[in-house]
């Protein structure tokens, strides 16, 4: 098997606050293979975006990586000095943000923003960078790219702007793209197009994708594997088909039950009772225990770690033999 492009081991992110230390991520481990699409799902605040920010080294102050390692193509990147990390961002890891309306600087032309980014990472002349930018915009599906490249962001619609954002994230041909809720802010009608454009482009360059979303439908159609996150931890990770058909963790089972299906005769969508605990009030034992339908004694006192129960599948749940304590 090939070496993973991204390897995250036991990643723990903490925020010191006045009321003590909040643990935003705890013991998160996963790999992404070259060209693979890893979906990351979970409710708001589960730590999906935090994982993305940690990988690219942009955790907001005063948060910090307290434990664990992040390796990109074998090179450790979580402790790189800022100047070196700058060479990783954009060049080796591209990032797409949620809201295309606010991701672009309103005062600069699209051309200026793309050319600036290309020339930061690649030794190209202004003209060559511009030609490359036009080609990219054309590839992400902006009609009449050669003319529209000199427009300002406010002259584009939301969907078009997200295409520009994708072009910006991919302009230096990174090996890994972190897409943080890339379609959440968009019209349902353009969501599929944006995902397609992103997938196509990444497939062309062989870039892997870490697709962060709370939309299981998007994951089902796009991802090769999926990581389900809950309260800053990975609850379950495995091939997307297997997880959807046969979710092991009660939380992922609940999430899968909440996917609307045309074929099902269900009157109502299933919902998981209760809400995710706040970071300051995560219960002892398994963080999901207050909402879990299968809760038993051990869940209340011992915290399970995501452990391999089948080849390629890891689950953090005491229902399965062989699960280790965190």
């Amino acid at each position: 098997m090939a070496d993973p492009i991204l390897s995250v081991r036991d990643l723990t992110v903490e925020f010191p606050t006045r009321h003590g230390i909040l643990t935003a991520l705890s013991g998160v481990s996963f790999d992404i293979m070259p060209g693979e699409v890893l979906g990351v799902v979970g409710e708001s605040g589960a730590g999906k975006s935090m994982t993305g920010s940690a990988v690219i080294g942009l955790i907001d102050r005063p948060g910090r990586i307290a434990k664990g390692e992040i390796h990109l193509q074998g090179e450790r990147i979580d402790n790189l000095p800022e100047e070196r990390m700058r060479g990783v961002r954009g060049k080796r890891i591209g990032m797409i943000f949620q809201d295309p309306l606010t991701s672009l600087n309103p005062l600069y032309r699209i051309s200026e923003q793309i050319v600036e980014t290309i020339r930061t990472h690649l030794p190209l002349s202004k003209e060559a960078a511009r030609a490359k930018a036009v080609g990219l915009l054309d590839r992400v599906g902006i009609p009449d790219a050669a003319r529209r490249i000199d427009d300002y962001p406010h002259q584009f619609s939301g969907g078009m702007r997200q295409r520009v954002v994708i072009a910006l994230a991919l302009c230096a041909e990174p090996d890994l793209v972190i897409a943080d809720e890339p379609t959440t802010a968009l019209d349902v009608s353009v969501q599929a197009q944006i995902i397609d454009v992103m997938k196509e482009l990444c497939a062309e360059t062989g870039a892997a994708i870490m697709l962060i979303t709370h939309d299981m439908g998007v994951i089902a159609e796009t991802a090769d594997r999926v990581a389900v996150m809950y309260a800053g931890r990975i609850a379950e990770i495995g091939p997307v088909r297997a997880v959807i058909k046969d979710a092991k963790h009660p939380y992922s089972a609940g999430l899968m039950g909440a996917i609307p299906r045309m074929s099902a005769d269900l009157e109502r969508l299933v919902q998981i009772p209760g809400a995710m605990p706040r970071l300051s009030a995560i219960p002892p034992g398994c963080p999901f225990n207050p909402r879990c339908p299968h809760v038993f004694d051990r869940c209340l006192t011992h915290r399970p770690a995501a452990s391999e129960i089948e080849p390629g599948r890891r689950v953090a749940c005491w229902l399965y033999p062989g699960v280790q304590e965190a």
Partner: protein
Amino acid sequence: MLAFIIRRLAQSVLVMLVVALIAFAVFRYVGDPIASMVGVDTRLADQEIMRERLGLNDPVVVQFLRFIGNALQGEFGISYRLQQPVTELILSRLPATIELAFASAMIALIFGVGLGVFTALKPRSPASALVMALSLIGVSLPTFLIGIGLIYIFSVELGWLPSFGRGQVVDLGWWRTGLLTESGLKSLILPAITLSLFQLTLIMRLVRSEMLEVLRTEYIRFARARGLSQRAINFGHALKNTLVPVITITGLQLGSVIAFAIVTETVFQWPGVGSLFINSVQVVDVPVMAAYLMFIALVFVVINLIVDILYYVVDPRLRVGG
């Protein structure tokens, strides 16, 4: 863009007309012009003839139109106190005020923006805390106190800089400048600092808070995620986005700097328009007061117009649909 400028120009003309009406009212109805001009021993009949000759018996509207007509030609009458044409007086004092205002605006802008950016980028450093604390003093101390304090330290105690006047000036024909002689430049330092201090702290605090705001935006995060250099992010992407409010405040403040140089000019006996105005108020020299009013209004109107046009240059979002 053109339509916008024309509309703004029309508004400016309207503002100037209103100010002209006020200036005219002051000119015409504060005291009796004839009584101010003649001695006590002039006969009433002579006064009546003068009144007729100066057109003071004409209908108010006619007098107002005449006032505007004269104003358009830069004609504001004769100063009661100095017996010189008012326009000439103001023009001769103007270079001093403009040089002072310009120097202090430059100080305020350069240090205001510089320190604002610095304190925003390094909010936790002790230097920033010190600058912020000092800026509070700048905002809260009255100008005359700062002026007197500076005179005490640098003129009286240290003897480095002159405490009053403009030093030697060079006559360029139409402009008497103090910028070309050593004593002129030395004399400029204290009053310029005094006048700039308030604007400096204001601009600095504004740039700082705007910059902090902008640094939290998504597009700055996205710029970071694309690996752009700190320098490009801070000065290219962030600073430019703080400029619109800064231009507004700086523009308006430049107007105030010229208009309210009165206090600084008085403290330093700076021979500018402000001290001319103060001296005129003391003896109710109405033509000078009226002309000064018109002049300051013109300064504000012109600066506002420039500020509005600058918005268009800086922010492309304003350009469409105008």
